[in-house]
């Protein structure tokens, strides 16, 4: 076990030992992204996005961000894929082809944003630099004071739940709100009750002769619920 100081000074040798792995994962990420663009079957795209997330998680592990990698693997590869699939079951399974003219503008925007991001990386601190803004100020305080103040072996948990407990409460409320919004919009509490109901088209609803059709449908559903 090397202590952190030697780790930082041996930075160059460390990078060269995993640089092949880094390059391999990055190449796979790019291949994955291009495959997602070209495939028109959305099922394949959903699977590829799961693979993309797993590769990203691997990359996070290489950067020693195990907690982030864990979250990426669980949320990105697991839950997102499931949610995308169940959303896809409600919509089309195939992407409509786009004309070349309409594809041009997004391509230019993506290219410009990509160049801007590349330009921004010039200013970024080196990976693992102890003097980078993220590590230098409050981060160093956390590392120094954690053993005497909180005494939790996992630094990330200590920061997340104790030093930044109020922020995490906000995150939980955000998750809660997202669930609530889905509940309200997609209607487990509405008349539809999560059941399959064929929506009458808007013009079919407007004449009064059509309106009573919907009403017994609703009361039937309610009766069923009472019985069960």
């Amino acid at each position, binding site marked *: 076990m090397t202590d952190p100081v030697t780790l930082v000074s041996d930075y160059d040798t460390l990078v060269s030992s995993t640089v092949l792995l880094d390059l391999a994962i990055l190449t796979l990420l790019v291949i994955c992204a291009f495959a997602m663009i070209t495939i028109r079957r959305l099922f394949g795209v959903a699977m590829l996005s799961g693979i993309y997330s797993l590769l990203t998680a691997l990359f996070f592990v290489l950067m020693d961000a195990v907690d982030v990698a*864990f979250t990426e693997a*669980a949320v990105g590869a697991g839950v997102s894929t499931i949610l995308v699939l169940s959303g896809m079951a*409600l919509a089309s399974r195939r992407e409509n082809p786009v004309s070349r003219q309409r594809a041009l503008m997004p391509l230019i925007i993506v290219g410009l944003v990509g160049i801007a991001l590349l330009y921004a990386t010039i200013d970024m601190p080196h990976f693992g630099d102890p003097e980078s803004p993220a590590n230098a100020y409050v981060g160093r305080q956390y590392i120094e004071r954690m053993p005497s103040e909180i005494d*939790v072996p996992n630094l990330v948990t200590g920061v*997340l739940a104790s030093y930044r407990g109020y922020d995490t*409460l906000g995150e939980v409320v955000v998750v809660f709100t997202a*669930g609530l919004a889905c509940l309200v919009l997609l209607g487990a509490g509405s008349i539809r009750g999560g059941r399959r109901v064929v929506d009458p088209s808007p013009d079919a609803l407007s004449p009064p002769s059509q309106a009573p059709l919907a009403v017994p449908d609703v009361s039937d559903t309610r009766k069923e619920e009472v019985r069960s």
Partner: protein
Amino acid sequence: MSMGHMLLRVTIKLLFAPIILFGLYVQFHGDYGPGGGFQAGVIFMVAFALHALGFGIEETKRVIPPKILPAGMALGVLIYAGTGVYTMLLGENFLDYDIIQPDSHHHAGQHIGILVVEFGVGLAVAATMLQIFYVFASREAEPQDDVW
């Protein structure tokens, strides 16, 4: 669903308990290793989503009724915020866990506080994710195998 899913269903049945166990490990071992409430909640949800994918969502709804999920979501947030209110009632700042065990020499208050708070996070995340999955997956009849 036909008998063609036999292999999948057996695999899911075999995997279900270990996934839940792993979720518990991630939940309560978050102080010592990677993980915590967010990840554990998602892992719990994935176990039940897997069950729904293999056995149909109606079967999963018999295991976890959709009605209890909003209660779970709210309870998770309340446990978290309640811990903060509890420390305030004891006379400290919001979410200042040290007051839970003020005489401890190894910061037992912090450990207890973090454990309780993470449990709230796990409960809220698991219930929310399952709720989102339920409302998405149960709007239409289950798709046939060949539509994908």
